[in-house]
């Protein structure tokens, strides 16, 4: 049994290791991919293996590498073994159609990981909230604290770079932080929550908007929560309003239903309104087309 220690390592190290194992024809059930420190042998012993130059070429479809790279960001301890099993099946067992076979259990599992990571990236793009912390010459500086479910900072960073090119920003997370200064992205180790920036004064306006755009006559709490699960609420300035909005909604709707109907006011004198009326002179306007 080969033991491969992966703690703190990522996709590139896995790929080098997988190439080597394939070249030595080690079958998937002959490898144990370990991430928990201290269970087998000493930390780092097997890691040294991975510095070796990979030998032997392995041909797998390019689409698999994209998927594998995404899946590697998942926190599931099973991902490395799963990826190796698929590479093995693709190259050694020559199961060419494997990736297209959505009903295969390994492919389903891969798809599951990829989707979870993509969703997490999407939610990070959506729920990061920047806070303005100052200026550097004429560039505004913003900082955000975010807690992603998976290790996605690198996968998610490009989006922010393209969108917020014109300002300096940092996103701090427990795993890893990313910084943009207008010319390059930099990654630094993760930090504690206490590093999170102070609230931004704009948050009051944002909450005013959130409160006003909500329609109490259409309360659908479950629909909201399926898209914006509670685990994200801690870092969303608007989330503190949710409870009170829900609590008040019934009373607000009852007031609307009980409100007295307002009479119709006469048309004001206005040249434009008059011109509109003249355009349909000679009777009421009727339908264009054949819808009745």
């Amino acid at each position, binding site marked *: 049994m080969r033991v491969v220690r992966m703690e703190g390592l990522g996709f590139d190290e896995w790929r080098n290791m997988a190439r080597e194992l394939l070249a030595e024809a080690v079958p998937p059930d002959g490898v144990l991919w370990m991430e928990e420190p201290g269970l087998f042998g000493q930390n780092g012993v097997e890691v040294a293996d991975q510095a070796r130059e990979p030998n032997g070429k392995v041909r797998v479809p390019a689409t698999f590498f994209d998927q594998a790279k995404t899946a590697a960001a998942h926190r599931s301890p099973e991902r490395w073994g799963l990826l190796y099993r698929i590479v093995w099946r693709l190259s050694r067992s020559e199961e060419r159609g494997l990736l297209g076979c959505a009903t295969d259990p390994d492919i389903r599992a891969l798809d599951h990981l990829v989707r979870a990571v993509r969703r997490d990236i999407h939610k990070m793009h*959506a729920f990061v909230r920047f806070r303005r912390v100052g200026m550097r010459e004429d560039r505004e500086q913003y900082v955000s604290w975010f807690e992603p479910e998976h290790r996605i900072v690198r996968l998610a960073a490009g989006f922010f770079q*393209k969108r917020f090119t014109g300002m300096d920003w940092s996103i701090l997370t427990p795993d890893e932080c990313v910084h943009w200064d207008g010319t390059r992205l930099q990654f630094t180790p993760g930090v504690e929550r206490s590093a999170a920036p102070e609230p931004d004064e704009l948050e009051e306006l944002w909450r005013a908007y959130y409160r006003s755009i909500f329609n109490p*006559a259409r309360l*659908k709490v*479950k629909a909201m929560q399926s898209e914006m699960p509670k685990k994200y609420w801690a870092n969303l300035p608007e989330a503190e309003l949710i409870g009170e*909005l829900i609590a008040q909604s019934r009373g607000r*709707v009852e007031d609307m239903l009980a409100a007295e109907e307002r009479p119709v006011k006469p048309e004001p004198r206005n*040249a434009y309104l008059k011109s509109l009326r003249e355009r349909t002179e000679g009777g009421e306007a009727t339908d264009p087309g054949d819808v009745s």
Partner: protein
Amino acid sequence: MELERKLEILADAAKYDASCASSGGARKDSRGGKGVGSTGGAGICHSYAPDGRCISLLKVLLTNACLYDCHYCINRRSSNVQRARFTVEEVVGLTLEFYKRNYIEGLFLSSGIIQSADHTMELVVSVARQLREVHDFRGYIHLKTIPEASPALIELAGKYADRISINIELPTQKGLNALAPEKNLERTQDAMGWIREKIDEGRERRRSQSGRGGSLEGTLAPGLERKKLGKAVPFATGQSTQMLVGADSSPDAVLLERADLLYRDYRLRRVYYSGFSPIPEPSVRLPVKPPPLVREHRLYQADWLLRFYGFDVRELTSPEQPDLDLQLDPKLAWALKNRAWFPADVNRAPREVLLRVPGLGVRNVERILSARRTTRLRLADLVRLRVPMRKVLPFIVAADHHPAKQGLDSESLRARFLPPPKQLELVFERGPELWLPEPAELETARSGEI
């Protein structure tokens, strides 16, 4: 008036407009520019309100003062609502500040009509112009357009915006005459037709610029000449509209036929259905009681069937039954009435037939088509695709499954799919939270995807 109070009033005034999508903008980003912003692909929902709606854009009116008297609208001139008005700079500032904090994808700007259509449109356009030209803002902009505004202004709106829209509001002129006397269906559709030409023109120009155009002849909208293309200004990539549900007596068939016409003849990206919702300033001309929320949901589902599943309006409704079944989704309702189509063999049936199987979505149909090239599909395979088995079983044949014939013909099939009785409490009077769709339905409540 303080900015915060204005924001409250003018967001409150805009919230009855259902469309908040920020998808479908041309791909652009802020690299090489001096500001912020990017669009392209699917838009992002940055938050959700407890009404389940996506918050993607800063959706506000420039002013809620209005000359018109649309009886379903809180801003109509007969309403006593408090009025407010943003300056152009205030909207520009709010958009940028919200955007830079990653609260929004961009701006959705509309306005009550003040003085005249052109005057109003000019103000709306100048917000977009400042954002684009002064601040190099490259985020999403959706501008609501007034059909009576002059073509030059609409063209300018299209130049700055990713999407422009005109609300059709009600599917018939008769309905408008009663409830929105200043609005005119023919003028609205004329403006939509004109906008469609501009959008087509812009698409052709982009295509020929990127060198993938091929022959232009035959693909242009009628009346466009080749020489015009070179100097045409950039233009929005899509238009959408909204129809109110339950404000007048139009049945679903009329709403869907109007939507179908708009999709086919005017190439609209989206028609939004907005169930009429009670407002704080009710009008004497309108029913107080709103339609059940589920009606709007069924319309979105039917709309999806028209656009992606190859259905025709006349298959979903009939003169005898012009409204959709509130209790069953429209595909299931159709399947129960057209049992001769089933069972469909998942290993053999063509795509068009699989798309009509209740419980099979577009994505799973594609997966089935690709998987069956290598295997004969069994029920366990469908379970792995997370197909809702209870729903599909009576309608399919798989390698290890043949539905009982009498099961499919039996009248009890409909009863089997009806929701349990307590969920039929669709009326509003007993509090807004009584009817909640099942979790599976929730995900699709806005999109209508089945």
